[in-house]
């Protein structure tokens, strides 16, 4: 089946940035979680997950992000999630209080800067 989401990973100044394009739901959430966890090598300070091109995200996606953040924390790494101010996805993240455990940024640059600073 053609995936409903594409995961694109690029490094920006030693910080891996994973851009999720498409829809994340029960169909693919756990698989993406595994893929994202593998995207941040031990040497990296953490991972930026960019949701600015994510067209759909629900509680399964939130759950995946929370679990990913926990696993990374155990590895002394940080997860930052990028979600633009006017993104429809933002409301889902707020409702599920993701921002309580995972810091949200408006842009990738912002997130990368934060991660490098914390290093």
């Amino acid at each position, binding site marked *: *089946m*053609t995936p*409903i989401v594409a995961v694109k990973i690029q490094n920006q100044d030693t910080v891996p940035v994973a851009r999720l394009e498409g*829809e994340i*739901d*029960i*169909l693919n959430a756990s698989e993406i979680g595994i893929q994202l966890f593998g995207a941040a090598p031990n040497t990296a300070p953490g991972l930026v997950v960019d949701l600015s091109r994510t067209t*759909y995200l*629900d*509680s*399964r996606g*939130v*759950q995946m992000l*929370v*679990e990913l953040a926990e696993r990374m924390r155990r590895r002394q790494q940080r997860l930052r999630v990028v979600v633009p101010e006017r993104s*429809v996805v933002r*409301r*889902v993240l707020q*409702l*599920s209080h993701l921002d309580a455990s995972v810091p949200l940024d408006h842009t990738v640059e912002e997130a990368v800067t934060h991660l490098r600073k914390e290093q």
Partner: protein
Amino acid sequence: MTRILIVDDDPALLHALPEAVRLRVDGVIVDTADSAPVALERIGAVDYDAIVTDIKMPGMDGLALLSRIRTIRPDTPTLLITGHGEHDLAIQALRGGAYDFIQKPIDREYFALSLRRAIQVRELKRQVEEQQRALRRHAEELEQAVVARTRELQFLAEASKLLAVWLDYPTTLEHLARMTVTVLADVCVIDVVEEDGVAQVAVAHADPSRQALIRNLRRRCPPHANESHPVARVLRSGQSEMDAEVPHWLVGEATDGEVMKALLELGITSVMVVPLVARERTVGAITLAADRPDRRFGPRELALAEDLARRTALAVDNARLYQREHRVAETLQRSLLPQRLPEIPGVAVAARYRPGQPEAVGGDWYDVLTLPGWQVGLVMGDVAGRGVRAAAVMGQLRNALRAYALEGHPPAPVAERLNYLIDLGEMATILYLIFDPATWTVRYVNAGHPPPLVIGPDRSTRFLGGGAPPLGGLLQPSYREETATLAPGSTIVLYTDGLVEGKGANVDEGLRRLERAAAAGPDADLESLLDHVLTALLRDRPSGDDVALLALRASPLDPDRLELRMPAVPFSLPSLRHILRQWLETAEADPEEVYEITVACSEACTNAIEHAYNAADAIIEVKATRSGEEVVITVRDWGQWRPPRGKHRGRGLGMMQGMMDAVEIIPDPRGTTVQMRRRLRREVQR
């Protein structure tokens, strides 16, 4: 013993002549008569070897008597006694058929000589006649034998003809039994044990009114119930059994009075049972019985029955081999047709498959694919040829097409790839069409297949044109994608050429008939439309070819109401969201509302899928209605919700509550209904 008659009215001569004869002719009995009437009486009673009569007698004379003798005993030589010098009379006598004449005074030596010669001639004549009769008899017997043998050969030829056009077990065996009773026996029972152990029985009686008696008898003592049943014995031994006189084993079986009565009523006098042996295996037996005293089975009848059995066994064996191959092809082909069409939210699909000749499986197939983004792939294909080979090629193409299509290849590259894939010498036509319900557009490639038919919402019809060579037709054909935009509410019909081609009909006429039938067909649902089309096109023209039909219709969205049914699997969700978004936009929700209501609905469905079900073919029903500015989403399933488990599992419900104004979960004994409401802002904005 030689016996002659002497007729004379002269008592002296009548006394003297016999004496003279007895002295000169050995072992002769001489009768006498003194008048023609007395003589005639004797001649009527005894076939004399010779008759001697005087010409001159009172009343009926010798010549008159001669003429009567010639009539009643034409072979008996008659000698006439004439007076001296009565030459005229003598000549008259010879002309009248006398053997000789004796002149008076009688020369006794000459008389005796003539008489002996007459008797000899008569004897020789008799012998010749006897031989001729024997010859005639022999010829007649020979002729009868030829007639009988011819009839037997004709019967065997007829039987072979019947067996060659093997229809099915019951029909062929019934016919054979019926044919046999008119020629070979009065009763015929044919048993065949099929490979799966099922026994087939055909029963016939020369007198159809007594058929029920035989049937009854068979029901009362079936061979499998009794080891000593003749049929059971022959099935075991593979050897013929014959009882030309008393069918003691039949009587021996008569364990109850009813059976005995039936046997007596049938009055069977002679029975034989011959095995059906094919490739050293006994596959059945033919029982033949006679109920007429003049019909006794002998070696000839047994040989004929065994000949019949050999032919029958061969046909049974062929039929089995054929059936086996047919079953393989059929199973293969059926397993390649979708067991169930996918349920695609908002899109109705229906299909029909009608096999043509039952004896040869064709290579027609159809497929329906759910493609990403609420798109539907329709496939119709037809592999040239029949049987296992065609079914196997069809399987390869079908699976390859699925794989390419699901990888997201558009129609033309799919056709090109299939063309590389198809083996040299194989040929197939395919139509691959992608329908996008959101835009009402189709993209397709047609490789040698009849054109798809589109029925508009106004019942107008048109064919989607554009064709390319069939797969396997050219080494490097180029396939071009065709596109068309349909009026919302249109119906697409795909079919194989068996629907429009058939015997004696040209394709254009077939296409026109299809258009007419489709335009006149019931509008209400696709299933009845397809039934109507099938009946209309194949009614008076039973197609020899297989026919596959596939139809798709998407309803235009009703801004007040949306109803969807889909399998309770995660894969349903992307399509559900796609169509729900479309509907919410039609219902004038703003982008944020569209997103949030979609999330709530998707969450409810995810819960239903994850918590409510284990069953493989479970269904979820989603209803969305809009009245005024309120949107109500109802998600119904037929399972039981479990309490949320794990730290994050409760998140879904929280999400629903956060996105909607009100969320209500209503469990009932049969399942769970989630009802969610949300007031749209659009009224305020206006």
